[in-house]
Protein backbone atom coordinates (compact mmCIF):
# COMPACT_ATOMS: atom_id res chain seq x y z
CA UNK A 1 0.00 0.00 0.00
CA UNK A 2 1.24 3.48 -0.86
CA UNK A 3 1.30 6.60 1.25
CA UNK A 4 0.57 10.03 -0.26
CA UNK A 5 4.15 10.46 -1.40
CA UNK A 6 4.07 7.01 -2.97
CA UNK A 7 0.98 7.95 -5.00
CA UNK A 8 2.73 11.16 -6.08
CA UNK A 9 5.86 9.20 -7.02
CA UNK A 10 3.88 6.78 -9.19
CA UNK A 11 2.02 9.61 -10.92
CA UNK A 12 5.30 11.37 -11.65
CA UNK A 13 6.17 8.39 -13.88
CA UNK A 14 3.29 9.43 -16.15
CA UNK A 15 4.82 12.83 -16.86
CA UNK A 16 6.52 13.17 -20.22
CA UNK A 17 9.68 15.16 -20.79
CA UNK A 18 8.83 18.45 -22.50
CA UNK A 19 5.27 18.70 -21.25
CA UNK A 20 3.12 21.39 -19.64
CA UNK A 21 1.37 20.16 -16.49
CA UNK A 22 -1.23 21.59 -14.12
CA UNK A 23 -1.12 20.19 -10.58
CA UNK A 24 -4.12 20.47 -8.27
CA UNK A 25 -4.07 20.95 -4.49
CA UNK A 26 -3.15 18.06 -2.14
CA UNK A 27 -1.40 14.91 -3.37
CA UNK A 28 -1.01 16.37 -6.91
CA UNK A 29 1.18 19.16 -5.51
CA UNK A 30 3.59 16.50 -4.19
CA UNK A 31 4.08 15.16 -7.72
CA UNK A 32 6.38 18.11 -8.45
CA UNK A 33 8.91 16.63 -5.99
CA UNK A 34 9.29 13.44 -8.07
CA UNK A 35 9.63 14.73 -11.62
CA UNK A 36 12.80 13.00 -12.89
CA UNK A 37 15.95 15.10 -12.85
CA UNK A 38 16.82 16.29 -16.34
CA UNK A 39 13.19 16.42 -17.47
CA UNK A 40 12.01 19.75 -18.81
CA UNK A 41 8.51 19.98 -17.39
CA UNK A 42 6.70 23.30 -17.09
CA UNK A 43 4.16 23.61 -14.30
CA UNK A 44 1.14 25.80 -14.96
CA UNK A 45 -0.57 27.57 -12.10
CA UNK A 46 -4.04 28.66 -13.20
CA UNK A 47 -3.88 32.02 -11.43
CA UNK A 48 -1.54 33.00 -14.25
CA UNK A 49 1.94 31.48 -14.30
CA UNK A 50 3.89 29.05 -16.45
CA UNK A 51 7.13 27.84 -14.95
CA UNK A 52 6.28 27.55 -11.27
CA UNK A 53 9.36 27.23 -9.12
CA UNK A 54 9.78 25.99 -5.54
CA UNK A 55 8.73 27.84 -2.40
CA UNK A 56 10.92 30.89 -1.70
CA UNK A 57 13.62 30.98 0.95
CA UNK A 58 12.51 32.59 4.18
CA UNK A 59 12.65 36.36 3.82
CA UNK A 60 12.27 36.18 0.04
CA UNK A 61 8.49 35.71 -0.05
CA UNK A 62 6.80 38.00 -2.55
CA UNK A 63 3.11 38.76 -1.88
CA UNK A 64 2.64 39.36 -5.62
CA UNK A 65 3.86 35.86 -6.49
CA UNK A 66 1.59 33.00 -5.46
CA UNK A 67 0.23 29.76 -6.89
CA UNK A 68 -3.40 28.69 -7.29
CA UNK A 69 -3.34 27.40 -3.69
CA UNK A 70 -2.43 30.97 -2.63
CA UNK A 71 0.99 29.80 -1.43
CA UNK A 72 4.07 31.93 -1.92
CA UNK A 73 6.22 30.50 -4.71
CA UNK A 74 9.03 31.50 -7.07
CA UNK A 75 9.50 31.80 -10.81
CA UNK A 76 12.19 30.02 -12.84
CA UNK A 77 14.33 31.17 -15.76
CA UNK A 78 11.88 31.14 -18.68
CA UNK A 79 8.74 31.65 -16.58
CA UNK A 80 5.85 33.69 -17.98
CA UNK A 81 3.01 35.52 -16.24
CA UNK A 82 -0.41 36.22 -17.79
CA UNK A 83 -3.96 37.12 -16.83
CA UNK A 84 -6.71 34.72 -15.74
CA UNK A 85 -8.47 34.70 -19.12
CA UNK A 86 -5.32 33.68 -20.97
CA UNK A 87 -4.61 31.11 -18.28
CA UNK A 88 -7.91 29.36 -18.93
CA UNK A 89 -7.56 30.04 -22.63
CA UNK A 90 -4.46 27.87 -22.80
CA UNK A 91 -6.26 25.22 -20.73
CA UNK A 92 -9.37 25.30 -22.95
CA UNK A 93 -7.26 25.23 -26.12
CA UNK A 94 -5.51 22.09 -24.80
CA UNK A 95 -2.06 23.62 -24.73
CA UNK A 96 -1.66 22.13 -21.24
CA UNK A 97 -0.78 18.46 -21.75
CA UNK A 98 -1.70 16.94 -18.41
CA UNK A 99 -3.91 17.79 -15.45
CA UNK A 100 -3.45 15.98 -12.16
CA UNK A 101 -6.11 16.52 -9.52
CA UNK A 102 -7.76 15.00 -6.49
CA UNK A 103 -11.30 13.64 -6.34
CA UNK A 104 -14.00 12.59 -3.90
CA UNK A 105 -15.52 10.15 -6.40
CA UNK A 106 -14.82 8.84 -9.90
CA UNK A 107 -17.30 6.80 -11.90
CA UNK A 108 -16.53 3.89 -14.22
CA UNK A 109 -17.27 6.09 -17.27
CA UNK A 110 -14.78 8.74 -16.14
CA UNK A 111 -17.10 11.23 -14.43
CA UNK A 112 -15.50 13.08 -11.54
CA UNK A 113 -16.95 14.70 -8.40
CA UNK A 114 -14.62 16.83 -6.33
CA UNK A 115 -16.18 20.15 -5.43
CA UNK A 116 -19.36 19.84 -3.42
CA UNK A 117 -20.87 17.77 -0.63
CA UNK A 118 -24.58 18.61 -0.26
CA UNK A 119 -25.36 19.85 3.24
CA UNK A 120 -21.80 20.94 3.90
CA UNK A 121 -20.28 24.36 3.36
CA UNK A 122 -19.54 24.69 -0.35
CA UNK A 123 -16.40 26.61 -1.13
CA UNK A 124 -16.64 26.43 -4.90
CA UNK A 125 -15.15 24.69 -7.88
CA UNK A 126 -12.34 27.17 -8.51
CA UNK A 127 -10.73 26.15 -11.79
CA UNK A 128 -11.54 22.43 -11.54
CA UNK A 129 -14.53 22.43 -13.90
CA UNK A 130 -12.58 24.27 -16.57
CA UNK A 131 -9.62 21.92 -16.21
CA UNK A 132 -11.60 18.68 -16.40
CA UNK A 133 -13.77 19.90 -19.27
CA UNK A 134 -10.80 20.71 -21.47
CA UNK A 135 -7.67 18.79 -20.47
CA UNK A 136 -6.20 16.37 -23.00
CA UNK A 137 -5.22 13.98 -20.25
CA UNK A 138 -6.50 13.84 -16.68
CA UNK A 139 -5.01 11.72 -13.94
CA UNK A 140 -6.78 11.53 -10.60
CA UNK A 141 -4.77 11.12 -7.41
CA UNK A 142 -6.89 9.92 -4.51
CA UNK A 143 -7.48 7.37 -1.77
CA UNK A 144 -9.30 4.27 -3.02
CA UNK A 145 -11.89 4.42 -0.20
CA UNK A 146 -13.24 7.31 1.88
CA UNK A 147 -12.91 7.75 5.63
CA UNK A 148 -16.08 5.69 6.13
CA UNK A 149 -14.43 2.83 4.23
CA UNK A 150 -16.66 3.24 1.17
CA UNK A 151 -15.25 2.92 -2.33
CA UNK A 152 -14.60 6.14 -4.24
CA UNK A 153 -14.51 4.24 -7.56
CA UNK A 154 -18.20 3.85 -8.33
CA UNK A 155 -20.63 2.74 -11.05
CA UNK A 156 -21.99 6.32 -10.87
CA UNK A 157 -20.97 9.33 -8.79
CA UNK A 158 -23.36 10.14 -5.98
CA UNK A 159 -21.99 13.65 -5.37
CA UNK A 160 -22.57 16.64 -7.69
CA UNK A 161 -20.32 16.29 -10.71
CA UNK A 162 -17.35 18.43 -11.63
CA UNK A 163 -17.12 17.00 -15.14
CA UNK A 164 -18.31 14.09 -17.24
CA UNK A 165 -16.38 11.34 -19.07
CA UNK A 166 -13.04 13.04 -18.58
CA UNK A 167 -10.83 11.00 -16.23
CA UNK A 168 -8.31 8.82 -18.07
CA UNK A 169 -6.33 7.32 -15.23
CA UNK A 170 -6.54 6.95 -11.44
CA UNK A 171 -3.70 6.30 -9.02
CA UNK A 172 -4.65 5.30 -5.47
CA UNK A 173 -2.81 3.81 -2.50
CA UNK A 174 -3.84 0.38 -3.87
CA UNK A 175 -3.65 0.51 -7.64
CA UNK A 176 -3.25 2.19 -11.01
CA UNK A 177 -6.44 1.98 -13.06
CA UNK A 178 -7.37 3.35 -16.45
CA UNK A 179 -10.89 4.26 -17.49
CA UNK A 180 -11.95 2.23 -20.54
CA UNK A 181 -13.59 4.18 -23.38
CA UNK A 182 -16.68 1.95 -23.12
CA UNK A 183 -16.77 2.20 -19.31
CA UNK A 184 -15.08 0.29 -16.52
CA UNK A 185 -11.91 0.57 -14.45
CA UNK A 186 -9.13 -1.47 -16.04
CA UNK A 187 -6.71 -2.65 -13.38
CA UNK A 188 -3.23 -1.83 -14.65
CA UNK A 189 -0.97 -2.23 -11.64
CA UNK A 190 -1.10 -3.21 -7.98
CA UNK A 191 0.63 -1.23 -5.25
CA UNK A 192 3.48 -3.13 -3.58
CA UNK A 193 2.09 -5.85 -1.32
CA UNK A 194 -1.52 -5.36 -2.41
CA UNK A 195 -3.48 -8.28 -3.86
CA UNK A 196 -5.99 -8.17 -6.71
CA UNK A 197 -8.56 -9.41 -4.19
CA UNK A 198 -8.01 -6.36 -1.97
CA UNK A 199 -8.47 -4.05 -4.96
CA UNK A 200 -11.68 -5.87 -5.91
CA UNK A 201 -12.99 -5.41 -2.38
CA UNK A 202 -12.29 -1.67 -2.48
CA UNK A 203 -13.76 -1.01 -5.95
CA UNK A 204 -17.53 -0.61 -6.23
CA UNK A 205 -17.57 0.19 -9.96
CA UNK A 206 -16.96 -2.31 -12.75
CA UNK A 207 -13.40 -3.60 -12.45
CA UNK A 208 -11.79 -5.15 -15.53
CA UNK A 209 -8.95 -7.58 -14.80
CA UNK A 210 -7.05 -9.05 -17.70
CA UNK A 211 -4.26 -11.55 -17.12
CA UNK A 212 -1.58 -11.13 -14.49
CA UNK A 213 -1.57 -7.68 -12.89
CA UNK A 214 1.98 -6.44 -12.36
CA UNK A 215 3.14 -4.71 -9.21
CA UNK A 216 4.03 -1.02 -9.52
CA UNK A 217 7.68 -0.16 -9.87
CA UNK A 218 8.31 2.73 -7.53
Amino acid sequence: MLDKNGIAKRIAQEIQDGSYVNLGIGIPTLVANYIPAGFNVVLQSENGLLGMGPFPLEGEEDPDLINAGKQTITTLPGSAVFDSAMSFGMIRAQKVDLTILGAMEVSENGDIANWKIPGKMVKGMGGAMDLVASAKNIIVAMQHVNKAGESKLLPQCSLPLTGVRCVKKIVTELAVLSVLPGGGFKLEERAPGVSVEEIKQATAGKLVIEGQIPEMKI
Partner: protein
Amino acid sequence: MIDKTVKNAEAAVADIQDGMTIMFGGFGLCGIPENCINALVKKGVKNLTCISNNAGVDDFGIGLMLHQHQVKKMISSYVGENAEFERQLLSGELEVELIPQGTLATRCLAAGYGMPAIFTPAGVGTEVAEGKEIRNFNGKDYLMEMAFDADFAIVKAWKGDTAGNLIFRSTSRNFNPIMAMAGKITIAEVEELVEPGVLNPDHIHTPGIYVHRIFQGERYEKRIEQRTVRTQ
Protein backbone atom coordinates in the same frame (compact mmCIF):
# COMPACT_ATOMS: atom_id res chain seq x y z
CA MET B 1 -3.39 62.93 -23.01
CA ILE B 2 -6.66 62.74 -21.14
CA ASP B 3 -6.00 63.04 -17.42
CA LYS B 4 -7.81 60.28 -15.49
CA THR B 5 -6.46 61.08 -12.06
CA VAL B 6 -8.65 61.45 -9.03
CA LYS B 7 -7.41 62.59 -5.65
CA ASN B 8 -7.73 59.39 -3.66
CA ALA B 9 -9.79 56.24 -3.01
CA GLU B 10 -12.66 58.18 -1.43
CA ALA B 11 -12.99 60.38 -4.52
CA ALA B 12 -12.74 57.35 -6.82
CA VAL B 13 -15.68 55.53 -5.21
CA ALA B 14 -17.73 58.62 -4.32
CA ASP B 15 -20.59 57.89 -6.73
CA ILE B 16 -20.89 54.15 -6.06
CA GLN B 17 -24.49 53.64 -4.94
CA ASP B 18 -26.39 51.03 -2.93
CA GLY B 19 -27.40 48.02 -5.03
CA MET B 20 -24.72 48.36 -7.69
CA THR B 21 -22.70 45.52 -9.25
CA ILE B 22 -18.96 45.86 -8.77
CA MET B 23 -16.05 43.77 -10.00
CA PHE B 24 -12.96 43.46 -7.84
CA GLY B 25 -9.63 42.33 -9.26
CA GLY B 26 -7.36 39.96 -7.35
CA PHE B 27 -6.82 36.27 -6.68
CA GLY B 28 -7.09 35.43 -3.00
CA LEU B 29 -5.49 38.47 -1.37
CA CYS B 30 -3.00 38.90 -4.22
CA GLY B 31 -3.53 42.04 -6.28
CA ILE B 32 -6.71 43.25 -4.57
CA PRO B 33 -7.61 46.96 -4.61
CA GLU B 34 -7.01 47.46 -0.89
CA ASN B 35 -7.50 51.21 -0.81
CA CYS B 36 -10.82 51.21 -2.65
CA ILE B 37 -12.16 48.37 -0.51
CA ASN B 38 -11.28 50.36 2.61
CA ALA B 39 -12.97 53.43 1.11
CA LEU B 40 -16.14 51.44 0.36
CA VAL B 41 -16.18 50.15 3.94
CA LYS B 42 -15.86 53.74 5.17
CA LYS B 43 -18.57 54.92 2.78
CA GLY B 44 -20.93 52.21 4.02
CA VAL B 45 -22.61 51.58 0.66
CA LYS B 46 -24.89 48.53 0.86
CA ASN B 47 -26.66 45.75 -1.07
CA LEU B 48 -23.74 45.33 -3.43
CA THR B 49 -23.33 42.50 -5.89
CA CYS B 50 -19.62 41.70 -5.95
CA ILE B 51 -17.94 39.84 -8.78
CA SER B 52 -14.61 38.60 -7.47
CA ASN B 53 -12.79 35.29 -7.73
CA ASN B 54 -12.65 35.06 -3.92
CA ALA B 55 -14.22 36.86 -0.98
CA GLY B 56 -11.22 37.83 1.13
CA VAL B 57 -10.52 36.69 4.67
CA ASP B 58 -12.20 37.75 7.92
CA ASP B 59 -10.24 40.94 8.47
CA PHE B 60 -8.92 41.80 5.03
CA GLY B 61 -10.16 42.40 1.51
CA ILE B 62 -13.82 41.85 0.70
CA GLY B 63 -14.14 40.19 4.12
CA LEU B 64 -14.16 43.72 5.57
CA MET B 65 -17.23 44.57 3.51
CA LEU B 66 -18.94 41.34 4.54
CA HIS B 67 -18.47 42.25 8.19
CA GLN B 68 -20.30 45.53 7.57
CA HIS B 69 -23.13 43.65 5.80
CA GLN B 70 -22.51 45.59 2.61
CA VAL B 71 -22.66 42.61 0.28
CA LYS B 72 -25.96 41.20 -0.94
CA LYS B 73 -24.51 38.74 -3.41
CA MET B 74 -21.09 37.28 -4.25
CA ILE B 75 -20.30 35.92 -7.70
CA SER B 76 -17.10 33.92 -7.26
CA SER B 77 -15.34 30.67 -8.09
CA TYR B 78 -13.98 29.87 -4.62
CA VAL B 79 -15.09 31.33 -1.31
CA GLY B 80 -15.29 30.58 2.35
CA GLU B 81 -11.82 31.43 3.60
CA ASN B 82 -13.57 33.39 6.33
CA ALA B 83 -15.98 32.50 9.11
CA GLU B 84 -18.27 35.51 8.70
CA PHE B 85 -18.87 34.60 5.08
CA GLU B 86 -19.95 31.11 6.09
CA ARG B 87 -22.22 32.43 8.85
CA GLN B 88 -23.99 34.88 6.51
CA LEU B 89 -24.35 32.24 3.81
CA LEU B 90 -25.87 29.66 6.16
CA SER B 91 -28.22 32.22 7.73
CA GLY B 92 -29.45 33.30 4.29
CA GLU B 93 -28.22 36.90 4.63
CA LEU B 94 -25.82 36.44 1.75
CA GLU B 95 -26.49 35.06 -1.70
CA VAL B 96 -23.66 33.27 -3.50
CA GLU B 97 -23.34 32.27 -7.13
CA LEU B 98 -20.43 29.92 -7.71
CA ILE B 99 -19.10 29.74 -11.24
CA PRO B 100 -16.04 28.06 -12.76
CA GLN B 101 -12.93 30.22 -12.61
CA GLY B 102 -12.31 30.14 -16.35
CA THR B 103 -15.94 31.05 -16.99
CA LEU B 104 -15.60 33.97 -14.59
CA ALA B 105 -12.48 35.16 -16.40
CA THR B 106 -13.88 34.71 -19.88
CA ARG B 107 -17.15 36.48 -19.05
CA CYS B 108 -14.98 39.47 -18.08
CA LEU B 109 -13.04 39.16 -21.31
CA ALA B 110 -16.25 39.05 -23.34
CA ALA B 111 -17.47 42.28 -21.73
CA GLY B 112 -14.18 44.00 -22.48
CA TYR B 113 -14.14 42.76 -26.07
CA GLY B 114 -17.72 43.77 -26.75
CA MET B 115 -19.01 40.23 -27.18
CA PRO B 116 -22.39 39.34 -25.64
CA ALA B 117 -21.61 35.73 -24.79
CA ILE B 118 -19.04 32.96 -24.88
CA PHE B 119 -19.18 29.19 -25.26
CA THR B 120 -17.26 27.04 -22.82
CA PRO B 121 -17.21 23.32 -22.05
CA ALA B 122 -16.71 24.04 -18.32
CA GLY B 123 -19.71 22.80 -16.37
CA VAL B 124 -21.33 20.71 -19.12
CA GLY B 125 -23.20 17.83 -17.46
CA THR B 126 -23.04 19.47 -14.02
CA GLU B 127 -25.42 21.67 -12.03
CA VAL B 128 -23.64 24.72 -13.48
CA ALA B 129 -25.34 23.90 -16.80
CA GLU B 130 -28.88 24.05 -15.38
CA GLY B 131 -31.05 26.45 -17.38
CA LYS B 132 -28.29 27.36 -19.80
CA GLU B 133 -28.26 27.02 -23.56
CA ILE B 134 -26.06 24.20 -24.84
CA ARG B 135 -24.55 24.23 -28.32
CA ASN B 136 -22.64 21.44 -29.97
CA PHE B 137 -19.59 22.38 -32.01
CA ASN B 138 -17.55 19.68 -33.75
CA GLY B 139 -19.10 16.97 -31.61
CA LYS B 140 -18.51 18.61 -28.23
CA ASP B 141 -21.06 20.36 -26.01
CA TYR B 142 -20.52 23.93 -24.82
CA LEU B 143 -22.47 26.15 -22.43
CA MET B 144 -23.42 29.63 -23.48
CA GLU B 145 -22.33 32.05 -20.77
CA MET B 146 -23.15 35.76 -20.86
CA ALA B 147 -20.70 38.65 -20.70
CA PHE B 148 -20.73 40.38 -17.33
CA ASP B 149 -22.56 43.66 -16.96
CA ALA B 150 -20.96 45.51 -14.05
CA ASP B 151 -21.50 49.14 -13.03
CA PHE B 152 -17.94 49.46 -11.77
CA ALA B 153 -14.72 47.49 -12.03
CA ILE B 154 -12.10 48.20 -9.38
CA VAL B 155 -8.60 46.96 -10.09
CA LYS B 156 -5.12 47.25 -8.67
CA ALA B 157 -2.00 47.67 -10.78
CA TRP B 158 1.69 48.05 -10.01
CA LYS B 159 2.32 51.13 -12.09
CA GLY B 160 0.04 53.45 -14.00
CA ASP B 161 0.20 56.81 -15.67
CA THR B 162 -2.27 59.68 -15.50
CA ALA B 163 -3.65 58.64 -18.89
CA GLY B 164 -4.84 55.39 -17.25
CA ASN B 165 -2.31 53.02 -18.81
CA LEU B 166 -1.56 50.12 -16.46
CA ILE B 167 1.26 47.66 -15.81
CA PHE B 168 0.78 44.75 -13.46
CA ARG B 169 3.41 42.87 -11.49
CA SER B 170 3.87 39.09 -11.35
CA THR B 171 0.81 36.98 -10.46
CA SER B 172 -0.98 39.98 -8.98
CA ARG B 173 -2.04 40.49 -12.60
CA ASN B 174 -4.66 37.67 -12.42
CA PHE B 175 -8.18 39.10 -12.96
CA ASN B 176 -7.12 42.75 -12.90
CA PRO B 177 -6.54 43.47 -16.62
CA ILE B 178 -9.68 41.64 -17.77
CA MET B 179 -11.88 43.24 -15.13
CA ALA B 180 -10.40 46.62 -16.03
CA MET B 181 -11.75 46.04 -19.53
CA ALA B 182 -15.16 44.91 -18.31
CA GLY B 183 -16.48 47.72 -16.11
CA LYS B 184 -18.82 50.44 -17.33
CA ILE B 185 -16.66 52.64 -15.13
CA THR B 186 -13.22 51.33 -14.23
CA ILE B 187 -11.25 52.55 -11.24
CA ALA B 188 -7.57 51.66 -11.06
CA GLU B 189 -5.47 52.09 -7.96
CA VAL B 190 -1.73 51.80 -8.43
CA GLU B 191 1.36 51.54 -6.28
CA GLU B 192 3.11 54.14 -8.38
CA LEU B 193 1.44 56.81 -10.50
CA VAL B 194 3.63 58.50 -13.12
CA GLU B 195 3.30 61.14 -15.83
CA PRO B 196 2.53 60.14 -19.45
CA GLY B 197 5.70 59.18 -21.29
CA VAL B 198 7.38 57.47 -18.36
CA LEU B 199 5.96 54.02 -19.13
CA ASN B 200 7.11 52.35 -22.34
CA PRO B 201 4.04 51.92 -24.61
CA ASP B 202 5.28 48.43 -25.46
CA HIS B 203 5.02 47.42 -21.82
CA ILE B 204 1.43 48.51 -21.16
CA HIS B 205 -0.88 45.63 -20.15
CA THR B 206 -4.11 47.67 -20.01
CA PRO B 207 -4.44 50.68 -22.31
CA GLY B 208 -5.86 53.78 -20.65
CA ILE B 209 -9.02 53.78 -22.78
CA TYR B 210 -10.41 51.15 -20.41
CA VAL B 211 -9.59 53.15 -17.28
CA HIS B 212 -11.76 56.05 -16.16
CA ARG B 213 -10.21 56.94 -12.83
CA ILE B 214 -6.74 56.38 -11.47
CA PHE B 215 -4.95 57.22 -8.25
CA GLN B 216 -1.94 56.14 -6.27
CA GLY B 217 -2.97 54.10 -3.22
CA GLU B 218 -2.05 55.62 0.11
CA ARG B 219 -0.55 52.40 1.43
CA TYR B 220 -0.41 48.71 0.60
CA GLU B 221 -0.37 45.97 3.19
CA LYS B 222 -0.21 43.18 0.55
CA ARG B 223 -1.02 40.49 3.04
CA ILE B 224 0.16 36.94 2.30
CA GLU B 225 -2.56 34.30 2.66
CA GLN B 226 -0.36 31.17 2.75
CA ARG B 227 3.24 31.89 3.61
CA THR B 228 5.21 28.88 2.39
CA VAL B 229 9.01 28.72 2.40
CA ARG B 230 11.77 26.21 1.77
CA THR B 231 14.76 25.81 4.01
CA GLN B 232 17.44 25.41 1.35
